[in-house]
């Protein structure tokens, strides 16, 4: 049964172009949170030799000379367009596995006719409905579909269905470290064993693979041989951990600033928890200084158990504030802080401790809080600890409008 991997081309850069067609043909880069590093590049930027993930200042000269447009990341827009792309893919098959913000696996069971043509229908429909260009790789297994999508993209075919008879030729051109699931450590071991390409890996003796790479490695090899071993997960697994953290736009030595930031992150994490119907059993608060700067360094982190597990904003912000007292060292300039929620469990399964009662008032209060914020915008109603001014807020100097999620930022068209 064939599998397709649909992969959005230069996703964030493509999102910027949907509402700003003048960017077509112009080099476009998108920067990470806080405008630090390059996280997306249009093809024009790739052609300039600018690498992914490097700090922006290193490439600024080249980009300026090429007339590149630079954007702060606009996750409201990217998240919305991603959802739309996935929704369109859902029209083709009920079996869609959203693999990342810009990739999805589709099970193409019962698709008669030419697979390449079907791939083109997918690509054209997504482009027409959402404005996002995608590459489509189709093959017998997920691991091969991943390679097919890479071929579709790098050879600018945009759609590539890997035929069984042409597989070996393709695999011979793929480095072993490019195979899905082969990390750098395994790649080194495999090269030492003489398997430096995907084809040689596919031909490696299964007993050796099992002995050296375990059952996970064996699955990869079987998949390269065309035997499906990886199922599509029809529902994305619930988040097992929630992390909300950011760098400050400028380092701060003010405890009040850090407290405000931590409380905000705790509140945001609580919203995510409630949205997926979970409670957290563990809350970790951390903060640290800038390791790339000279001066006194401090990395503080402390974990609290929540008894019983909770998703109540007031409980989580209180815990975060208590932990800050434990990890705070005065006289440092802090660069980053955050909250991690772990040991998540379903809301209904929370075990009551002897002296606690599940307070129905708390649940009603949280439902009211989420309802008001859904209506009026995130953070419209919040705990005072989250603060008002947000002087520590992340830097995003050149973010485009949130065209699809904010009434005040809709795209404007001349009549």
């Amino acid at each position, binding site marked *: 049964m064939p599998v397709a991997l649909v992969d959005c081309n230069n996703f964030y850069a493509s999102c910027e172009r949907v509402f700003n067609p003048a960017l077509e043909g112009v080099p476009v880069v998108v920067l990470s949170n806080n405008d630090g590093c390059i996280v997306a590049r249009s093809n024009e930027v790739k052609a300039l030799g600018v690498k992914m993930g490097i700090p922006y200042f290193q490439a600024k000269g080249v980009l300026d000379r090429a007339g590149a447009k630079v954007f702060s990341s606009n996750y409201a827009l990217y998240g919305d367009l991603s*959802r739309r792309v996935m929704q369109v893919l859902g029209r083709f098959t009920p079996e869609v596995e959203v693999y990342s913000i810009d990739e999805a696996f589709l099970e193409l069971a019962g698709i008669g006719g030419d697979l390449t043509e079907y791939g083109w229908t997918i690509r054209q429909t997504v482009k027409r409905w959402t*404005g996002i260009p995608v590459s489509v790789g189709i093959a017998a297994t997920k691991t091969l579909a991943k390679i097919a999508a890479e071929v579709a993209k790098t050879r600018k075919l945009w759609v590539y269905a890997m035929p069984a008879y042409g597989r070996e030729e393709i695999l011979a051109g793929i480095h072993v470290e490019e195979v899905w699931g082969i990390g750098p450590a395994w790649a080194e071991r495999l090269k030492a064993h003489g398997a430096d390409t995907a084809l040689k890996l596919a031909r490696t003796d299964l007993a050796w693979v099992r002995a050296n790479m375990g059952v996970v490695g064996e699955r990869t090899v079987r998949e390269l041989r065309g035997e499906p071993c990886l199922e599509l997960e029809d529902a994305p697994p619930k988040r097992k951990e929630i992390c909300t953290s950011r760098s400050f736009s400028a380092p701060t030595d003010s405890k009040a600033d850090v407290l405000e930031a931590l409380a905000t992150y705790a509140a945001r994490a609580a919203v995510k928890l409630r949205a997926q119907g979970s409670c957290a059993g563990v809350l970790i608060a951390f903060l640290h200084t800038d390791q790339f700067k000279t001066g006194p360094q401090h990395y503080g982190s402390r974990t609290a158990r929540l008894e019983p597990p909770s998703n109540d904003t007031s409980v989580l912000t209180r815990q975060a504030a208590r932990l800050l007292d434990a990890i705070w060292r005065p006289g440092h300039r802090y660069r980053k802080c955050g909250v991690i929620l772990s040991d998540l469990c379903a809301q209904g399964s929370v075990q009551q401790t002897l002296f606690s009662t599940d307070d129905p008032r708390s649940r009603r209060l949280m439902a009211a809080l989420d309802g008001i914020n*859904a209506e009026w915008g995130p953070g419209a109603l919040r705990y005072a600890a989250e603060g008002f001014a947000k002087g520590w807020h992340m830097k995003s100097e050149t973010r485009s409008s949130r065209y699809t999620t904010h009434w005040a930022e809709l795209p*404007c*068209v*001349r*009549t």
Partner: protein
Amino acid sequence: MVFAAKSQRRTCPLALSRVPAGFPSPADDYKDRDLDLHEHLVQHPAATFFMRASGNSMTGAGIHDGDLLIVDRSIPPRSGSVVIAILDGELTVKRLKHCGDRPYLTPENPEHAPIWIDEGSTFEVWGVVVYVVHKV
């Protein structure tokens, strides 16, 4: 997303009668559910976008300055459709017409002239305007 999130939906109850406690109105038996304007205006949520019109060249088509346009990208444009067009890198709203095979864009205001698409200019239909929301 615009309207798509449930949270942003504005709904109107179909039937709600004020009655003394203990005497439910027989009409309430026929209350189905709230009318959802979003459901009525948005046929293809994944492909529908909201835009704001600016300018006066389309008043004849009922599009005024500041109006909200509901744009569906999944609908194939026909001759006579009101479209969002990309003309030399800019988004504009006009009526699409054809003279033979040659497309052109017409404003709906006698003070503005039709725009012929030159061979050299880049032209593409971004989406089809399906509704206009105008504040009275």
